[in-house]
């Protein structure tokens, strides 16, 4: 019964470098979400995966951001050529999709990204 895990927990990088963040969802959860949370702000939706369907990428802020998920397992969020405004906590959540959008999301601990 492990929960959602994310790695690394903290990442400090230099401006212009690429970073890769990882999320391990709860086993059996078909849906996976990535969010960004800037200091003092709410959660900003980035991308949503559901099973083998095409992901909903509508929240990705620029083409420097991309994410992959293989089947219903691990997902990676990649940020290329990082900028200082990318500094934030990146949260992953998973859920077992139910009809009508009533599923409950389970969140990971997040990755705190600091771009110097």
């Amino acid at each position, binding site marked *: 019964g492990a929960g959602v895990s994310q790695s690394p927990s903290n990442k400090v990088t230099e401006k212009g470098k690429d970073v890769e963040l990882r999320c391990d969802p709860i086993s059996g959860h078909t849906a996976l979400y990535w969010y960004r949370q800037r200091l003092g*702000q*709410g*959660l900003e939706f980035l991308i*949503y995966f559901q099973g083998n369907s095409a992901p909903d990428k509508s929240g990705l802020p620029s083409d420097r951001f991309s994410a992959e998920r293989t089947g219903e397992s691990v997902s990676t969020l990649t940020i290329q050529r990082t900028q200082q405004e990318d500094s934030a906590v990146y949260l992953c959540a998973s859920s077992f999709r139910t009809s009508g959008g*009533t599923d409950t999301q389970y969140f990971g601990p997040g990755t705190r990204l600091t771009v110097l």
Partner: protein
Amino acid sequence: AQSVSQHNHHVILSEAASLELGCNYSYGGTVNLFWYVQYPGQHLQLLLKYFSGDPLVKGIKGFEAEFIKSKFSFNLRKPSVQWSDTAEYFCAVKWGRSYIPTFGRGTSLIVHP
């Protein structure tokens, strides 16, 4: 655009005081409503949710929320807070059959012992 407003950004209370945190959302229609809580050093976790039926929803740790459709609101309440309720509280809304919730900015609650 669809939005969720939490008007109280910071709330400071003494133990045993009553709590009400506001949450308002834009647009009507069918909504699924959530309150999440993040205790210091812990993950975001679900506090309570409303999908249909009784508009007064009870959650964990003595929290409740009331869905008032005419006011587009889903305020969180607790009659008597404890020091352990110190946390960040987030309201979230899903419209229609959407699977992607919109989160409010969050309310930081500090309860003094």
